[in-house]
């Protein structure tokens, strides 16, 4: 169960980094598939809350205890706390970007897609730091 959630979490998170660039390229090419991809990305950003939430609530508390007792307590107190809350804004960013594409405001949607990709990438890096924090002694 934990592994399935973890792989889903990582896979969907990686898609939220990759898909914005595909959408931007398709918007530039004026390909109508950009609209479908936009709503797929927004949908994935909401779905991501399920594995993220289950991992955080069910499996993370044990890791948190280890991190806080280790050499990198900030990996939880700063990095994980930031990560868990930034994650709540990803669906908001992705949905706004998708609505902009739906409304034909393609140029304006650019910065929102770029923000989604950057925030998702930083969240991924934060996840790696948290994992390293659990091993730091």
């Amino acid at each position: 169960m934990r592994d399935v959630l973890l792989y889903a979490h990582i896979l969907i998170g990686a898609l939220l980094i990759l898909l914005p660039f595909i959408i931007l390229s398709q918007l530039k090419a004026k390909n109508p598939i950009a609209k479908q991809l936009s709503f797929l990305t927004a949908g994935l950003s909401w779905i991501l809350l399920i594995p993220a939430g289950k991992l955080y609530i069910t499996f993370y508390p044990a890791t948190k205890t280890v991190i806080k007792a280790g050499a990198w307590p900030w990996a939880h107190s700063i990095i994980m706390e930031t990560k868990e809350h930034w994650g709540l804004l990803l669906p908001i960013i992705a949905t706004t970007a998708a609505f902009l594409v739906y409304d034909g405001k393609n140029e304006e949607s650019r910065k929102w897609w770029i923000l989604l990709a950057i925030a998702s990438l930083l969240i991924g890096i934060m996840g790696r730091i948290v994992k390293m924090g659990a091993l730091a002694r």
Partner: protein
Amino acid sequence: MKFNYYIGTTASSWLLLALILAVEFSAPFKGVLVSIFSHHWIGKAVLVTLAFAAAGFLFAGKKSVAGIADRDCAWYSIVSVLALIFLFFVLHFML
């Protein structure tokens, strides 16, 4: 039915920051969220989502917030709140 996603984004981002501060500084408030939603994170997720939808529909016709165009307000709000969340947890850890 019209939906103003800019206003929804503005409301939900600032609400998230308010919820973070409230949970960190008020144990009773955190307890209320836990008692209703089983976990404070779920409570924040539900309330932020509701704020996005409710504000987007309720203020669908609004074009500005405090004299700032709704699209600018949404952008500055989301970027500011992302930065403030990180800054808050840095200061909260250090002080």
